[in-house]
């Protein structure tokens, strides 16, 4: 196992790198063929249940302004682990989340806290897991009109959004807003005007995305946004890259009608290069880091590892390059032909090994890296990363067509129906490809697939979107034995 070269020129970065590699290498078992790595599902479940039943210990006070996140991380981790809550706890979860809705729209980090885009995403996604239609059951208790007004009140002239009033602009907030608006059918051309160009401006020379960019305006009256300079603030980063990329994917239905001359562009080649460079070497057990020359961390299994699941929406796909395989996409019913093709651009096996060997805390829950303790955040993002390394969930043209064919136009003559329809069909075109699971350690390590854009199961995504868009989507045809629905 070759350690990262130091070139006889040690610095603080190379010292902490070497230290980390030493710890990680100790976590590789002697002979993995004899004892295949096991996902300690039961221990992780107990970790999550303990938090729910006994509450979070006082050190979680730092998360007091992120209470919907604690809920979402826990509930979605259950979903990935193929577990559902009982009706009593679902009821309590809904009430707890709804207590965070602000009277002026949006959700706060806790009851009576100011509304903020990040907890709004977490609350709505948590409700996607535990809520259902009907008064008091969550979904219909979301005040979508006020939420839309809240969103608009955060809009900036450069197409970005503040994360809350008096707060900063960053692409996490934009991701959270777009997911929420997409799920709840409140995304409009007006809301997202200029947002794609803002996202594009956050891409750095390294290929990944930064937290935000700084706008410059012309001295004219009224001032107009200059196309350049528009410098990214902060270096390329895994979390911001996932949020930017997923936002970019969600904005595509709104760009389809713009002329190719004015359509904002991102550099896909440098993006792909940056993503693959974030995967650590064998000495780092193939985990992902979030920035160049930083350390691997289990949470980037999702933020960076999960980003690979979005590449196909940008037209980046390994198998499509082969002359024979490019046909597959256009032909119906040939999905099984992918069976023996691992067409991923990341090293799926190595990522799973990182999570299984280094990401699991022996006492339950998952973590950044040893010897750190487990927490809810890392538990979800390690599991979601594991899921994205096990499954291939891709935008299926066949599924898209099924959804489009089943679309029921509203009774009123609504001109915005075309874009709504496109948003709906794109989001629900994601389908798990059967027969391509790559599960390290055997079938008992299998976790549920998760939607690459939303980080919800496809089933939950379909249910909440069908409700808000007033649509009935055709049932999915499952061929394999793993086709159980929760």
């Amino acid at each position, binding site marked *: 196992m070759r350690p990262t*070269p*130091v*070139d*006889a*020129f040690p*610095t603080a*970065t*190379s010292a902490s790198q070497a230290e980390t590699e030493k710890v990680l290498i100790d976590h590789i078992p002697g002979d993995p063929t004899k004892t295949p790595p096991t996902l300690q599902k039961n221990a992780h479940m107990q970790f999550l249940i303990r938090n729910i039943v006994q*509450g*979070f210990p*006082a050190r*979680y*006070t*730092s998360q*007091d*302004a*992120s*209470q919907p996140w604690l*809920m979402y991380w826990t509930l979605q981790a259950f979903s990935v682990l193929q577990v559902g809550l009982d009706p009593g*706890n679902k009821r*309590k*979860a809904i*009430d*707890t989340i709804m*207590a965070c809705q602000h009277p002026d729209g949006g959700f706060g*980090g806790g009851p*009576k*806290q*100011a509304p*903020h885009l990040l907890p709004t995403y977490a609350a709505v996604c948590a409700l996607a897991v535990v809520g259902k239609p009907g008064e008091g059951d969550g979904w219909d208790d979301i005040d979508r009109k006020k939420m839309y007004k809240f969103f608009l009140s955060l809009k900036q002239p450069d197409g970005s959004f503040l994360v*809350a009033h*008096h*707060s*900063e602009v960053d692409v996490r907030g934009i991701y959270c807003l777009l997911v929420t608006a997409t799920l709840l059918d409140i995304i409009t051309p007006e809301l997202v005007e200029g947002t794609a160009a803002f996202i594009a401006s956050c891409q750095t*020379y*390294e290929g990944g995305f930064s*937290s935000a960019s700084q706008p410059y305006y012309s001295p004219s009256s009224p001032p107009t946004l200059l196309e350049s*300079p528009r*410098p*990214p*603030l*902060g*270096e390329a*980063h895994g979390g911001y890259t996932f949020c930017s990329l997923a936002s970019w994917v969600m904005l595509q239905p709104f760009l389809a009608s713009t002329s190719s001359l004015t359509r904002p562009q991102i550099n896909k080649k*440098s993006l*792909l290069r940056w993503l693959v460079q974030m995967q*650590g*070497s064998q000495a780092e057990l*193939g985990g992902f880091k979030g*920035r*160049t020359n*930083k350390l691997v961390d289990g949470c980037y299994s999702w933020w960076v590892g999960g980003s690979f699941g979005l590449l196909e929406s940008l037209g980046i796909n*390994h198998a499509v*390059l082969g002359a024979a395989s490019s046909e597959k996409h256009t032909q119906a019913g040939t999905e099984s032909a992918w069976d023996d093709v*691992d067409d*991923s*651009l*990341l*090293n799926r096996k*190595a990522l799973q090994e990182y999570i299984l060997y280094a990401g699991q805390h022996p006492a339950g829950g998952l973590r950044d890296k040893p010897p750190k303790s487990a927490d809810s955040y890392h538990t979800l993002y390690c599991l979601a990363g594991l899921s994205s390394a096990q499954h291939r969930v891709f935008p299926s043209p066949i599924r898209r067509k099924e959804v489009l064919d089943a679309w029921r136009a509203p009774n009123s003559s609504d001109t915005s129906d075309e874009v709504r329809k496109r948003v709906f069909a794109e989001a629900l075109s994601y389908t798990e490809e059967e027969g391509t699971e790559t599960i390290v350690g055997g079938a008992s390590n299998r976790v549920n697939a998760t939607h690459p854009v939303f980080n919800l199961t496809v089933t939950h995504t379909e249910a909440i979107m069908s409700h808000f868009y007033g649509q009935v989507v055709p049932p999915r045809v499952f061929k394999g034995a793993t086709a159980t629905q929760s």
Partner: protein
Amino acid sequence: MTAPAAPPTLYSVRPEWADVTPVVQYEKANPLAPIVYTEEYKDATDYLRAVVKSGEKSERVLKLTEHVIRLNPAHYSAWWQYRYETVVALSWPLDVEMTLMDELADKYLKTYQVWHHRRLILLLPGAGAGRAAQELTYIANMLQTDEKNYHTWAHRQWLLAFHNDDALWAGELDFVDTMLNRDLRNNSAWHHRFFVVFQSGVRAGEEDRQRIIHRELMCVCHVKQHISLAPNNASAWNYLRGVLEFNKLPLSNVATFVKPYTVPLPDGAKDVVDLENPPPGQGAELPCVAAIEFLADVYEEEGGESTHMAVELWKSLGDEHDTIRKKYWEYRILQARSV
């Protein structure tokens, strides 16, 4: 050792707060997965919710928000919905606020709220124009203890871009040099250099772009020299690529420089000193993966006959030097062949 401080008196028993009725967090009892707060935190936030509800903006509210922030610096509502609005409403002295912020930023460096609050204060009319230069010095000091803090760097970049004042920009390249001299693998510092030189418009004295590009590739703090010191430094290679791509220059511009890094280190030092192309140092661990990748990209860019040389290099990466990314190197091969 100092004796532990006595727990502060709860607001609920302080006579000066007797006029305020605390507001509990959950009206419906029994939330799922509650945080088990300390008594001190629960009490302070009960009173914070009460003043948010009543709209009181007073000095005691400033003390209360400070208290909550010290217990939980990520409490964004305490910062902005409340502390900031109270500072504005009271026309609170901004230098007093900034002194407190200096202390809090020092304590809670990782919390971005402390940086954003500084920004809000700096944007207030009373902050004073001279404040920006002082802020740059402050940030530089903070980066000595936490060299890669994302929010600190982003705050510095915002400050420079927002004021866009030549006097502020003037010291930035020296500052980057200081940071890179401490650790040439600090990617935040490399990004900052790119931000200053290329992405924020053109600085006074840097109008001759050809000279600037040459300097960035070549001169004192140049990237080639850094690669020569420690070749396996992804940050430096990314910067090198960035300079060329941003200025739409072919990668082949530096092919002569790159080649010695793609092969094992030769025995004995080279006699000829080529200032344009500093060779790998004696400690270099070669061949360097980033150099092989770079050379393959040069060949791919040339196209035609060169493509198969690129393919050979990608194969060597996938099979030997960078096996973790085997799939990606195979993808590059497929892609180059499909052109």
